[in-house]
């Protein structure tokens, strides 16, 4: 960056791509074209068959080492990454650290250096701070790939991709869809990545439904609207994604009570009547039953929540193998 570039718009970081456009890291959906996302979804589709075989494994990442680096607790994301890596025959190591010393930058870098010294090929990173995966990607040696498994409120691109896979599986074409995301969008990395993916895949009508306290401050895109009123927002929608409501939101004074939230924004048999007949209902999990969604809905006919989990493995296999394709060729260039 130079003084000459003092300007109102700074170029977005494109360090997750190689110069030829292939993925080097998977940090954010932002900047990935709809075509590239579709390729990833196609690849994931071809991995789906693997789990129906006697041996649910392919030797694609044999000899590669993946480290799950989780600075924030997560069961589902961690285990699906672990399973995805194992089905690709990679060696997997999981490090879970809630240790405050690793939150300091210096020790985080030290930790990276130590792991790199063990010839790791892939880091899957979950961290409570927005930008942590970018930071790690900036500081790893060039032949190591980084996958963002959720950073603060910023991005959760693998979750968004598996959600897109689920939507495509049930709905086919993205372009005519109306998609509503209900809940704590402001604090949600999932919602940020979902909206970016939906936009990249051509969805024209994305509705973010929440009280003002949980909505973003600015409108992200002309095709993204803000709604305060659930019934209005859900009308004729094809896909509804409910987000988890954290208890901290009540403590921070953003909402009065879970009960009032359910009454106004909860997906219940009543509130979903305005949806399209064949609408699907999604949730990134884990669900607060009786808050953002009633059990009837979560386990109901329109719910595809378990399909999301199921597809998550194939989608993560696609991402991991995409990052490792041609990896020796890149290493040879160094």
């Amino acid at each position, binding site marked *: *960056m*130079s*003084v*000459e570039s*003092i*300007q*109102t*718009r*700074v170029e*977005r*970081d494109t360090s997750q791509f190689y110069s030829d456009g292939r993925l080097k890291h998977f940090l954010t959906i*932002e900047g990935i074209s709809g075509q590239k996302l579709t390729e990833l979804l196609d690849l994931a589709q071809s991995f789906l068959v693997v789990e129906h075989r006697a041996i649910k494994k392919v030797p694609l990442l044999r000899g590669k080492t993946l480290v799950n680096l989780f600075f924030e607790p997560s069961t589902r994301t961690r285990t699906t990454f672990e399973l995805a890596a194992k089905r690709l025959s990679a060696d997997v190591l999981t490090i879970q650290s809630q240790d405050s010393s690793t*939150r*300091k*930058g*210096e020790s*985080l*870098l030290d930790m990276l250096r130590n792991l790199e010294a063990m010839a790791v090929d892939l880091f899957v990173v979950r*961290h409570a*701070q*927005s*930008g*942590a995966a*970018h*930071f790690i990607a900036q*500081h790893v040696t060039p032949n190591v790939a980084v996958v963002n498994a959720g*950073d*603060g*409120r*910023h*991005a959760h691109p693998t979750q968004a991709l598996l959600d897109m896979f689920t939507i495509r599986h049930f709905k086919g074409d993205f372009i005519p869809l109306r998609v509503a995301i209900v809940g704590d969008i402001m*604090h949600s*990395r999932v919602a*940020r990545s979902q909206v970016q993916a939906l936009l990249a895949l051509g969805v024209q009508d994305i509705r973010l439904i929440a009280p003002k306290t949980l909505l*973003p*401050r*600015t409108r*992200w895109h002309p095709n993204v609207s803000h709604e305060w009123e659930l019934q209005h927002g859900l009308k004729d929608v094809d896909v509804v994604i409910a987000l988890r409501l954290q208890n901290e939101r009540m403590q921070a004074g953003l909402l009065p009570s879970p009960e009032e939230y359910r009454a106004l924004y909860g997906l219940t048999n009543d509130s979903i009547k305005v949806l399209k007949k064949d609408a699907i209902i999604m949730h990134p999990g884990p669900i607060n039953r009786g808050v953002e969604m009633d059990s009837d809905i979560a386990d109901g006919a329109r719910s595809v929540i378990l399909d999301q989990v199921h597809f998550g493995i194939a989608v993560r296999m696609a991402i991991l193998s995409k990052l490792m394709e041609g990896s020796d060729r890149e290493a040879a260039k160094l």
Partner: protein
Amino acid sequence: MKIASTFNQSDFQIHHVQTATIQNIVWVDSTANTVKPANLLIRDGKKIEVVSVETAPLKNFPVIDGKGYIACPAWWDLASTLPDPNNPSSGNVEAELKLAEEGGFAQVTVWPTSSYPLDTPAEVRLLQQTAKNSALMVTPIVALTRGLAGERPSDFAALKKEGCFITTQSSVPMTDLRVQARCLEYAATHHLKVFFQSIESSLAVGGYMHEGEVSDILGIPGIPVMAETIAVMRDLELAKHAEVQPHISQISCERTLNLLHSYGSENISADVSIFHLCFTEQQLINFDSRFRVTPPLRTESDRLALIAAVRDGQLAISSGHQPRATTSKMAPFANTASGAATFDVFLALGCELIRRGELSWPQWVKATSALPRKILNNYTKSEETTYLALDDFCLIDPDAQWDKLPEFLQSLGGDSGITGFRGKVKARVRLIPLS
């Protein structure tokens, strides 16, 4: 006394001058609002006569060739932080002052920090002792409250004996408004002037950047504009109540300017840091922690409003210099330290604003030299040091391209996040009055 008669094009030089001629410079006159070629005739280290380039140099005295250089008064800073002299690991005060000198500063105003609050005569003396070898004037700003803890006032009478005449609570919160009012009343008792860095901490805490478009995209908790505006209103009301003369330092947004305007600007001065004049929240779009500063960089319309206020001569430009160890910037964004070292890049950033036509040279000189001097002079009683007009100035090559400074010259903040600088102070000229 050694006086150089030739000018080395590449190295930074300091000229101590009694009687000499500086030829072929471009003279910036902020009072007359002109920029014109001139020779400077300096006599007895006191008088400077600006004459046409045809005028012959003073006979039998040194001649300095200033061809291609812009000459203007050195900068008077209103807001900088230095390392804690008690704690060498936080940096080296002398190295920072050397950077300031080479960056074109005549004077730096040192703010208190929680680790070095400048709340006792001993701390003030240690700073002055450390700064003794520097040619810079170092103005300590003492802590409004002991240890900046926000509970009770510092020993102002003792501090005044050390020559201190400004106090501030910096951006550290007070226990409550009643205590703040009392501390300000006590400062008024001692005729201290008060610098405010107005930030309402309950609105800023947990925020790491401007609350707006970029924080929304990055999912980084934001600091709303009202964290500043509410605090400015609070501080101005308190200052009025306590009858202290306020200076609002390092403002960041247009709405603050509107507030200052509505309060009437006669007795209220304000400054903006060079970073806030040059950069916006967009700088952070890639989580670039080198641009994490306090207050946060705001929007382009805020930046343009601040530029306009500088152009109108209402707003001084401060360095906002706050050196940070490189390691403290090496972490995920929210875990990094806020602050940027700017002594070394101050002029180059100013030159960029001038090249783009956002500021003129006279406006730059007014905002970095004339206005700060007026602000500081306003604050001194007649028996105290009066800051002289033009005894220290810079010869500038506005197009000199440079990258990083050599290691030993680098501020602790090291990389300010910008390379490819254009504009450098090539020499300092100081007048040594004939005694």
